[in-house]
């Protein structure tokens, strides 16, 4: 581990924390910038044992596209779930669903799990990552559906 990796284990997180602090404080004065940079450097350093790996790349275009896909899904699924909740609750047939993962990266799996939970009607129960076995990684999700046919809330399994 080089000195640079020791001092700056997560450059992307450092920038994210600094920007978040400036958003929170609401002014971009010298003192706040200094505080933001201090927090951005200290927090990744203190929490580096918890990070599975160093995030090197950040594809802004892909992230933006994913953001709008998720936003659209959240709006559509909210309406669907609203109808389920207000309807006959005895007709609800909820299911546990295995969602096979295309990734072995725990960070990506966690993001997908969070998206599944944030999308109404589906909930991540468990993330089962088998690092050694090939492609046995899977999500257990809980899906809420009133009868077959109203499964619009199904998450996109590809990221």
């Amino acid at each position: 581990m080089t000195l640079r990796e020791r001092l700056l284990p997560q450059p992307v997180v450092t920038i994210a924390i600094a920007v978040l602090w400036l958003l929170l404080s609401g002014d971009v004065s010298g003192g706040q910038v200094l505080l933001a940079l201090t927090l951005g450097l200290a927090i990744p350093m203190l929490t580096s044992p918890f990070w599975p790996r160093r995030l090197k790349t950040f594809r802004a275009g892909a992230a933006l596209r994913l953001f709008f896909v998720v936003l659209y899904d959240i709006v559509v699924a909210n309406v669907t779930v609203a109808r389920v909740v207000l309807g006959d609750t005895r007709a609800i047939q909820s299911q546990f669903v295995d969602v096979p993962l295309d990734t072995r990266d725990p960070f990506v799996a966690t993001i997908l799990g969070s998206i599944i939970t944030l999308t109404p009607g589906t909930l991540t129960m468990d993330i089962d990552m088998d690092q050694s076995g090939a492609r046995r990684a899977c999500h257990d999700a809980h899906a809420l559906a009133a009868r077959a046919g109203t499964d619009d809330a199904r998450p996109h399994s590809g990221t």
Partner: protein
Amino acid sequence: MFAEALASFLILTGGAFVLLGSIGLVRLPDVFGRLHGPTKATTLGVGAIVAASSIASFELTGNISLKEISVLLFLFITAPVSAHLIAKAALAKRSDGAPASDSQG
């Protein structure tokens, strides 16, 4: 005027979805179903209210307030984590511990 109307619309929409989340909490049959309610209310419900707050504060003070983005960000990070913990606890409490295909918790 237009901003006020838009903010009012967003507050009403957001409030409606938060209410629906609470109704879901009461009406859904088991712990896994009930978990859906509150985690959902935060997404569109609080999202719309926060957007209304942003628009209203810009209209009233003229300052662009970006604090709302961080509110939304914190909720979107913490909601799945707490839901995941409750779900895992509920799973562990079941005698077999394994997900079954029925909805009876």
